[in-house]
């Protein structure tokens, strides 16, 4: 029990109650911290992680009802289980606590057996919610998970200004035919690990992974200051890391790996598409199509990163850009100005 003990915060303005609850909680194998009123509790919750709150109602400065309301309004604390421990009179007060999101109500003086059961069940709920959040983050990136937590899930999109990055491994089909499936998966895992690192450290999210191709968005669901610069920096970071990996492979007598990336910037429609049962966060629009075309064109133009005019306009002066003239792409009525960027910006 001591090993899976929880971190509990006891909020009570009465010293005897704080001592007694702490003792009871510690005897159950948990760690107890104490706060004298709601305001102090909220300050502690902002700086330390807790698994469960034991909350009194009658308190000076900020009472238990106000604490429950403040927790509800704070996305990071919304799921923290709260057990109200009070000798407050009247059924309506207990009902009000539950309506405000309290997990449970324990009358004071707190019965030891009931306390044990309620605390275990509260901690188990917290564990499940944490696990759920972790799963969501694994499959949906932390930005999308945060967006879901804050705004809830709704099919539908909104127009945002963003940069879209498409990237794939050059000659991946030939590469995968020459190697064992295990070796191919190994290469993909390294590639994905480096991509996620480069993209998320520059404020983007990966929205699509198909084989060796991936798509990332910068500017949705959370806005970034300069989507174009972020997307280009991510592509350059990724190329640098992949070329280190490629050099290692070549030194071991294996085939080198090259990437191609296309970046376009403009308005996209971003949101959840699919059904209520299965949906994905995605972006659509001509900006997305253009980024995909640019990525394909890197093979023809024999360069590694190609960007459109809108992306170029957003870049800082110290990024060296080489104009590549105009290209007509399938699905685009007018020719498009494109530029290439060195993978590493020296």
């Amino acid at each position: 029990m001591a090993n899976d003990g929880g971190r509990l915060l006891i909020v009570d303005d009465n010293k005897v109650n704080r001592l007694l609850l702490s003792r009871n909680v510690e005897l159950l194998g948990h760690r107890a911290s104490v706060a004298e009123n709601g305001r102090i509790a909220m300050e502690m919750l902002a700086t330390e992680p807790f698994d469960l709150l034991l909350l009194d109602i009658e308190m000076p400065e900020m009472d238990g009802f106000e604490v429950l309301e403040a927790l509800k309004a704070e996305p990071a604390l919304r799921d923290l289980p709260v057990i109200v421990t009070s000798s407050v009179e009247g059924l309506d007060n207990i009902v009000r606590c539950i309506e405000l999101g309290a997990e449970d109500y324990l009358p004071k003086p707190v019965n030891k057996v009931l306390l044990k059961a309620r605390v275990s069940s509260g901690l188990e709920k917290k564990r499940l919610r944490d696990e759920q959040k972790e799963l969501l983050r694994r499959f949906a990136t932390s930005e999308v998970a945060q967006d879901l937590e804050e705004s809830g899930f709704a099919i539908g999109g909104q127009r945002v200004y963003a940069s879209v990055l498409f990237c794939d491994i050059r000659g991946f089909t030939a590469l995968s035919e020459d190697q064992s499936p295990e070796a191919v998966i190994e290469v993909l895992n390294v590639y994905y690990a480096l991509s996620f690192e480069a993209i998320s450290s520059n404020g983007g999210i990966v929205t699509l992974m198909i084989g060796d191709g991936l798509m990332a968005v910068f500017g949705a669901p959370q806005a970034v200051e300069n989507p174009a610069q972020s997307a280009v920096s991510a592509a350059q970071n990724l190329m640098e890391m992949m070329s280190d990996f490629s050099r290692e492979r070549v030194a071991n007598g294996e085939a080198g790996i090259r990437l191609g990336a296309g970046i376009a910037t403009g308005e996209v429609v971003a949101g959840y598409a699919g059904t209520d049962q299965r949906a994905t966060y995605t972006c659509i629009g001509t900006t997305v199509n253009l980024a995909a075309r640019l990525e394909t064109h890197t093979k023809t133009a024999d360069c590694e990163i190609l960007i459109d005019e809108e992306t170029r306009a957003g870049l800082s002066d110290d990024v060296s850009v080489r104009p590549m003239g105009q290209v007509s792409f399938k699905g685009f009525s007018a020719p498009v100005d494109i530029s290439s960027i060195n993978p590493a910006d020296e």
Partner: protein
Amino acid sequence: MFRNDDGTRMTNNTIDQAVYGELEEATGADFVAELVATFLDEAPGMIADLHDAATQQDDDRLRRAAHSIKSNANVFGAAALAEIARRIELDGLDADSLKILDTEYARTSAALKAKLDG
């Protein structure tokens, strides 16, 4: 209702032995001694607060002070003290409720001190 002439009996009436014994069993006798000492430290302040609130006719503060006394009295099984505090919390003051509370606190604290001493 309570007899003041017999020390032992006063203790028995003032503190519910079952509640007190259960508390000792659940949390340890040493801890309960510490808890009683804390209560005896804190209670005079709570009672002064109650009197002050009564003088100022601050109903909310009166209710909160009575609530705290009730809550702590219940911890030690001081049922009579808890009951008068509860009546003040719910119904406010009547003519002699403060006097009854003071008397009950005197009995309760004496009984608790007796427990600490022996």
